[in-house]
C-alpha cells in the first residue's frame, strides 16, 4: 500500500467529520478519526498526538495540513495496533483471579471507573448496556469478547 493510498484514506476519514467543508475538524473528533482508521491509542497517547497536530495557540480546530503528515507516519509505522483478542481475555482474567468466568456488574464498574484511565459515566453506561447479562447481573467476558469481535469483522 503506497503513501498516496494512505493519504487518500486519511483524507476520506477526515472529510466525514469536516462539517463546514473547510479542511478543519473539531479537536474533539480527532480521537474518532484516528480510531476509525484502525489505530488504538490510549487516552494518554491520544493526548500526545493531539498536541502534535494542534496550532501553536490552540483554536479548538485541527487543520488537515497538520494532521496529514502526522497521521501518515502513524499508519506507516503501524503504531497503536489494536489489542489482540487473547491479550484482552487475559486482562479480564487478571480482574477475575478466582476464575469464575465472569465479573459482577459492581466489580466491572469499580475497575473501569476507578483504575487506569477511568471511564466517564456515559462510557460506563454504554459498556454495561451491551456487556451485562441482566439475569445474572454480570458480564461473562469470554462470550462478550467473542460477540464484540464478530460484530467488528
Amino acid at each position, binding site marked *: 500500500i503506497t503513501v498516496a493510498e494512505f493519504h*487518500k484514506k486519511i483524507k476520506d476519514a477526515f472529510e*466525514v467529520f469536516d462539517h463546514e467543508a473547510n479542511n478543519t475538524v473539531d479537536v474533539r473528533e480527532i480521537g474518532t478519526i484516528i*480510531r476509525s482508521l484502525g489505530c488504538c491509542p490510549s487516552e494518554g497517547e491520544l493526548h500526545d498526538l493531539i498536541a502534535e497536530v494542534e496550532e501553536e495557540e490552540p483554536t479548538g480546530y485541527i487543520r488537515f495540513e497538520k494532521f496529514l503528515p502526522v497521521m501518515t507516519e502513524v499508519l506507516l509505522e503501524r503504531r497503536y495496533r489494536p489489542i489482540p483478542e487473547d491479550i*484482552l481475555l487475559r*486482562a479480564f482474567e487478571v480482574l477475575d483471579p478466582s476464575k469464575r468466568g465472569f465479573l459482577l456488574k459492581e466489580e466491572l464498574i469499580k*475497575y473501569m471507573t476507578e483504575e487506569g484511565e*477511568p471511564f466517564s459515566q456515559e462510557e460506563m453506561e454504554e459498556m454495561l448496556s451491551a456487556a451485562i447479562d441482566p439475569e445474572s447481573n454480570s458480564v461473562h467476558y469470554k462470550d462478550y469478547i467473542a460477540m464484540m469481535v464478530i460484530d467488528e469483522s
Partner: protein
Amino acid sequence: MGCGTSSVKDTRSEQVLKAALVIQNWYRGYSTRLKARQRYALTIFQSIEYADEQGQLQLSNFFSFMLENYAHIHEKDPEIVARLFGSTIQDYKDRQDYVAFVDVPNSYNGPRLQFPLTFTDIDLLVDAFKQQQILHARYVLEVLFETKKVLKQMPNFTHVKTSPSKEITICGDLHGKLDDLLLIFYKNGLPSGSNSYIFNGDFVDRGRNSIEILMILFVSFLVYPNDLHLNRGNHEDFMMNLRYGFTKEILCKYKIHGKQILQILEDVYTWLPIGTIIDNEILVIHGGISESTDLNLLHHVERHKMKSVLMPPTPLDGDPDTNLKKKKFNATVLPREVKTSTSLSEQLTKHEWEQVIDILWSDPRGKRGCYPNTSRGGGCYFGPDITSKVLNRYQLKMLIRSHECKPEGYEICHDGKVITIFSASNYYEEGSNRGAYIKLSFGMAPRFFQYQVTRTTCLRPLYQRVNAIESSAIRILRERIIAQKTDLIHAFQLQDRSKSGKLSMSQWAFSMENILGLNLPWRSLSSRLVTTDTNGDIDYMSSFQDIHIQKPVKEAQSTLIETLYRYRSDLQIIFNVIDSDHSGLISVEEFRSMWKLFNSHYNIHIDDFQIDELAERMDLNKDGSIDFNEFLKAFHVVHKLDKLNKSGSGLL
C-alpha cells in the same frame, strides 16, 4: 503504555492497573469505531437526500420543456397548464358553504371539532392522534379554510417579544413524525397564551403523520394566533409533496376528498409567513440567507404568489438575467408565445422569487463567501462573512434556522451567530440522530433540549443501533449502485485493460464517485460494498452479486429497466400531474408521448419501440389505459439476502 503483559515482579495493584488500561483502551477504540460507522451511515443518507433534491430542479426544467414542446397539451387540456402555473380555487366567503358537500356520518368515531376552536379541541386532537385515529375530511377542510383566512392577515414576518417570564420555544423540521411532536409537547407543554412556540417549517413529507401534525399545528394556531408561529419551509410546497410522500399520504387517508384537501393546501402553504423576528435581534427562517438578502423587500413581497420552488416566474421579453440563470442550471427558456392562463400580475418578479428561494433553501458553510447550493440545486451556501454582513445590515444578533439534519438535533456555527435546530429524531433511520428544541428569552443564552423517540421502552445497546442504521444506509446505497449497473460496468471495464475483473482501490473509488455523483468515503465503505483480494485489489463485479432489479417483463433490456428504476420518482410526479383526476390511470397514448418527451429532455437513449412494447404489456386488460402505480411498483429492487431470510434457509 501498553498491551498489558504483566511480569511476575508486578504487584497485584500494578497488574490490575494494566489490565484495566487494556480493557479501557480496547473499549474506547471499539466505541469510537462504532460512532465513526454511524457517522458514515449518516453521510450516505445525506448525500443521497441532497442528490435527490437536485433531481427536483431537473424536474422543473422538464416541465418547462414539456410545455414548450408538448404543444397540444395546453390546447386539449388547459387544466394541466393551470396546474403547473397555479391558479387559485374559487374563493368561498363562508366556511359552511365551502364544506357544504361533506357530511360527517353518525358512525364516525374520530374527534369532532367545534368552531370557533378552543384549547379543548387541541387536547381532543392530540388524544385522538395518539390512538391513531384519522380526522374526518370535513374537519380537515374546515381547519384549512379557517387557517387560510387567518394566515392571510398575517404579515410576511411576525415580530415577537419575549421576557424572562415569557420564554419562547423554537422547533425545527418535524417531517411528519408525530411521535416527536408529542414528545415535545410532553416535555415542554402544549401551546397556550403563556407557552409560545415557533415551528420553523418542514412540518410535512417523509414521515407517516404529516396531516396529523398539520392539523395539530393549525388548530393550535387558530386558538392562539399570537402565540403559535408558523414559518414556511421548503417542503410546504405542493410539488415537493408530490415527490416526498405527503400527497400520497393524503390520497391514501382521504380517498374521496383527498383532491379537495390537496387543492386548498396548495393555497394555505403560500400564505404561511416567511419568518419570525424575536426581540428585534433574532431572525428565525427555515433555510438561510444569501449575500443579497433584502429583508425590506421580503417584508413587502406578495408572498402568496410563491407557488412552488419548481415554478419560477416565466421570463419577460428576453430578460437576459433569467436566461443566464436558467442556462446555468441547464434549463430551457420558454418562448414568448407560450400562452398561459397566468397573467404577469400573478407572479413575483424574478428577483423577488430568488430572494424567497434563498430564505427557504440555503445552507451555512465554513467557507467564506456565497456560492450556489449545488447539492440541493436551489438557494446558496453562505459563509460566516455573509452572516456577519447581513446580520449587521439589519442590526440583528443571531440567525436561527433548520433545514439540515444534525446528529445532536442542533448545531451552532459561524462564531455562535447561526444555530441550526432540527426536531425530527431518527430522521433517516431509527438511531440516526437526536431531535432538539430551543428555549429562549431576551437577555438570556438559549437553552437546548434534546430527545430521541424510541420504539422500545429501553434503549438498545449502541452496537445494535449502529448496525441497524448502517445496514439501512448500505442498503439504499446498493440500490443506487444497481440502478447504474450498466454505466458502472462500462466505466470499470474502460480502466481494466487486462480484462482481469480487478481494479485498484483508487480506480474503483474514482469510477464510483464519478458515475454515481455521490461524494462519499468510498475507501472506508469498500469493505461493505465489494470484495477485495489478498493483494488489495477490488473484484468490481462483486457489488452486483446479491442484488438485482425485478424485471416486470422478462424480455425488457437491462438498460431500460435501470433507467426506469432510476427515474421512478420523477415519473411518479409527472404521472400525478397528468392524471388530474387522480384516478391512477393514464392512457397508453399519453404514456407514449410523455415518455418520448422525457426521453429527449433527459437525453436517455432508449428506443421508442422498447417503450411501446412495455406499454402494451402494462396495459393488462387491453382497454387503452395503464395503472401507472402498478407500473412503477413493478420496478423494485430485490435483495437476494432478503429472499434467503424469507425462505428461512439463510442464517445471518
